[in-house]
């Protein structure tokens, strides 16, 4: 396997009052070196749980990875102990979260939060780390970084905080950046700045990005590969061009046609996906999109459709009803 990240049959479950629920139910995909993979789907489909499973940050004690392999640079992250995992997380794998205010520590100056990670991962002296922190803030486009370094998170705007998060995530020049809805909380103009910044840093460092988002515009403009998740499973996976030009699963098609476009006719009726996602306890073992659109077929609802490569690098869950050959 030559991929940077290779996920194989990942199953992540949570223990709840009403028993175990499978938030991620046997998914496989990979991220190549230097590429951007977009993970798209509706809230609750398991996007974030997938990311948290990779970096071992599932809520404890309820969340568990029960099965599958998570190979990063040829090594299975699941077999690593805590110390090894800590070295990788924040070192070789950087992470940015949706809400920087919740991810940054409000009682420490931002400089200290960057220095901390450099000392931990790179064994730098305090002085060298501080110097590097100023450089990093400068690199992510924060004006007057030598002054800003002594600010607290609350003194910065949302866009600036996200830049600090990026500076921290990139401090150790990771090979993989996991970005969980990095621009969802931001305005479009600031979103454009942040996406541009991530792209520039990616080019500079040659890193790969796993971009989690529900915004198909962001997917189209920033990703090479797309993974479409629905109800804990991947229903379709292909290159960004293939997904947009030639979607083969009913859910992908529904998702693409239900977004209003700038060039669509105003006030016309939008295509909708009928029904709604079942709650996680009620997921059927068979095709979950059939469950959503209320298809009463006991075989389809019982038997999990095969996830198959139908064309080079184009994978689809081949439910006889939802997959169009």
């Amino acid at each position, binding site marked *: 396997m030559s991929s940077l990240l290779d996920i194989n049959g990942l199953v992540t479950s949570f223990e709840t009052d009403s028993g175990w629920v499978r938030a991620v139910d046997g998914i496989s995909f990979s991220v190549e070196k230097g590429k951007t993979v977009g993970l798209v789907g*509706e809230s609750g489909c398991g996007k974030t749980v997938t990311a948290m499973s990779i970096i071992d940050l599932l809520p404890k004690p309820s969340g568990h990875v029960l099965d599958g392999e998570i190979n990063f640079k040829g090594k299975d992250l699941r077999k690593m102990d805590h110390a090894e995992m800590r070295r990788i997380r924040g070192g070789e794998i950087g992470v940015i979260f949706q809400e920087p205010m919740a991810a940054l520590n409000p009682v420490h100056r931002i400089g200290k939060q960057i220095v901390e990670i450099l000392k931990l991962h790179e064994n730098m002296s305090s002085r060298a780390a501080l110097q590097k922190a100023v450089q990093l803030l400068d690199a992510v486009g924060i004006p007057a970084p030598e002054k800003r370094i002594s600010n607290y998170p609350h003194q910065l705007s949302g866009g600036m905080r996200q830049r600090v998060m990026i500076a921290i995530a990139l401090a150790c020049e990771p090979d993989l950046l996991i970005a969980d809805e990095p621009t969802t909380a931001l305005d479009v103009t600031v979103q454009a700045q942040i996406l541009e910044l991530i792209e520039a840093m990616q080019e500079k460092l040659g890193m790969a990005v796993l971009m989690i988002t529900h915004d198909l515009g962001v997917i*189209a*403009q*920033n990703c090479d590969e797309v993974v479409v998740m629905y109800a804990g499973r991947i229903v379709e996976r292909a290159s960004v061009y293939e997904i*947009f030009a030639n979607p083969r699963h009913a859910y992908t098609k529904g998702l693409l046609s239900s977004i209003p476009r*700038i060039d669509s006719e105003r*006030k016309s*009726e*939008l295509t909708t996906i009928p029904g709604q996602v079942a709650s996680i306890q009620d997921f059927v073992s068979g095709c979950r999109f059939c469950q959503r659109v209320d298809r009463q077929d006991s075989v389809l609802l019982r038997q999990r459709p095969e996830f198959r490569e139908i064309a080079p690098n184009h994978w689809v869950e081949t439910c006889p009803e939802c997959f169009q050959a």
Partner: protein
Amino acid sequence: MFPGMNTDNPTLLEIENLRQHFPIRGGVLMRQIAAVKAVDGLSFHIKKGETLGLVGESGCGKSTLGKAVVRLLEPTSGRVLFKGQDITRMSQRNIRPLRQDFQMVFQDPAESLDARMAVGELVAEPLIIQGIGNRESRQKRVAELLDRVGLPSNAAGKFPFEFSGGQRQRIGIARALALNPELLVLDEPVSALDVSVQSQVMNLLLELQRDFDMSYLFIAHDLAVVKHMSDRIAVMYLGKIVELAPADEIYQNPRHAYTKALLSAIPTPDPTAKKQRVILDGDVPSPINPPEGCAFGHRVNHPRYEESIGIDLPFEEVAPGHWVQKCPCCC
């Protein structure tokens, strides 16, 4: 043009030079030391059956404007005219009967619906406040409304937490519809919803508008959504409207630099479309002590920004129905 939407339709809402400032107090005597100029002198109107879309970045004053329009706030100056009647200075007591005609739908139905009230009570509450009908007739009306917004008939006895985000927004819409309003102020009604649910709620809003000939003030930050819903669009920046035009016109022919930047920043859901983002530096400036002159020219450090200081920036009609804030730097 949207069927039923006629330019000769009467004007329903008129806003004249509206200002909504919030005082900031400080010092030992808690004197006013500054003001947040959330809405800082703007005018527009909405006709019967029309949708005016309002876009802008967070902090530009969109939501404050929405609240001032339905008089949840007392405007600092300017006038709000509803069907020709000046409601700007009316007391809450006198305004209450008029509220039947203008209602509001909020962004986050999880927060705007009282979690301890059953859906039936929530939807009936406006009827009770206005003293309409008896218990029985209200129950009938609630059932009718729930059906109209696509909720199951047993929803009345359930509580908000038992519903998904999209369904909760339907409850919020049913509540706003209860009094047969002529104007709905919709503050980011679909922003919190997933794509597939978002289109369901947008379809519902379009259908209701068609059936009841309502006018909408549709506030959102998603430009594709606003374009789809609106007849005309107003672009707001730092408390002012910088451009206002028919929806198609503003997309095809934006005149103000801010509108252009905003439009170019939306990622197109088409991987073959070339990226042509105008990357703006910086954030929206603070509405406390906003810069003099053209606020957007100040943000982008326009070489001719200085020329806009100290002069009047007129809001001019540059083409039929297309209004722009004229300034030396951005228009």
